[in-house]
């Protein structure tokens, strides 16, 4: 503690590589149960009104305030500064284009959701009448642990494969694709499986499990990706066998 305070090193400046990019230091006197978001609002109101960051709900419901605290992606509003020590580094989420300071552009993330068609495309039967699917059914047991995503981008920031290949779909989009592919009411599962089976889909994942460890909602996108890998492998094997039986070249 410096004079009873905590030192916050905050990444400032525009997009990555901006000549103005720097780490600015702010001393904060901790208050009881103070969160990183409280620190940011206090810096903005008392020390530096030009600090750019983003937040919305303040209570861990929206995911807007995600940033990197000491290198790890977390929600600012749910991170108590008592957990962090005397010197804290705040940086914007990794793997996103930076707008300014701590605010990132979420476009690559939402593009991934669009690429996997992250919306339900119901079968005719599901569109015309309510489907009866008991909570104990196999598909609900598979899907339910994966539906609480609030698209905060923390898994996207934690993923090393996205650091190496920005065209990778990323954990959140694949997690969403899994919930739809497993859903019997969905009519576009085959197309979706084809989309995620490409080089920049499930096979880019190297099972490092950073997404699973980082997700504040306790979702395991890696489990979803492994599930998609099994389904893609099964459907590939099926088409291989049927092409051999039908006397066609494999894949034809």
């Amino acid at each position, binding site marked *: 503690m410096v004079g009873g305070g905590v030192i916050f090193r905050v990444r400032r400046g*525009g*997009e*990555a590589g901006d000549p103005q990019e720097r780490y600015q230091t702010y001393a904060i006197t901790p208050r009881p149960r103070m969160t990183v978001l409280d620190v940011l609002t206090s810096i903005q109101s008392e020390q530096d009104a030009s600090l750019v960051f983003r937040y919305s709900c303040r209570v861990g419901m929206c995911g807007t305030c995600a940033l990197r605290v000491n*290198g*790890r*992606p977390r929600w600012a509003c749910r991170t108590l500064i008592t957990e962090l020590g005397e010197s804290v580094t705040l940086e914007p989420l*990794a*793997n996103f*284009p*930076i*707008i300014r300071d701590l605010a990132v*552009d979420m*476009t*690559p993330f939402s*593009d991934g959701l669009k690429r996997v068609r992250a919306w339900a495309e119901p079968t005719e039967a599901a569109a015309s009448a309510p489907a009866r699917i008991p909570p104990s059914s196999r598909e609900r047991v598979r899907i339910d*642990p994966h539906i609480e995503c609030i698209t905060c981008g923390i898994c996207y*920031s*934690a*993923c*090393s494969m*996205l*650091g*190496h*290949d*920005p*065209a990778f779909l990323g954990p959140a989009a694949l997690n969403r694709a899994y919930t739809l592919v497993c859903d019997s009411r969905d009519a576009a599962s085959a197309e979706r499986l084809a989309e995620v089976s490409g080089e920049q889909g499930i096979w880019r994942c*190297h*099972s*490092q*499990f*950073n997404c*699973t*460890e*980082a997700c504040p909602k*306790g979702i*395991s996108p*890696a*489990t979803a990706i*492994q599930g998609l*890998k*099994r389904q893609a492998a099964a459907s590939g094997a099926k088409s291989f066998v049927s092409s051999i039986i039908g006397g066609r070249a494999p894949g034809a």
Partner: protein
Amino acid sequence: MASLSGPPARPPFWNLSAWRAMYPGMWAWVIQRLSAVVLLVIFPFHVLNPYNKWLRIAVLALVILHGMHGLKVIFTDFGFPARHQRKLLWVLTALGAAAFFWLAYLRKAFWGFF
């Protein structure tokens, strides 16, 4: 604001800043890859000089390390829930340490070690 028009360019593979948060699952992944590289380097020496006890013990340790992490990958690929991968990592590490102890110490006459 050129970077807003699309994903940033692919960084070169040696760019260490592309590696993200190092949680235990990530360390397991890195250790498995590194153990493979080290095995590739020392295995030819082991073949040329099979009775060198240091090389034997190093090969034994690295094969167990690489194999245990490989089992973790196989288990998670074939349905072990990834949300419990950290527990799986510790269990396999304990089994690997026990296997190493059994082979290297309890059968030390075979290895000519200690």
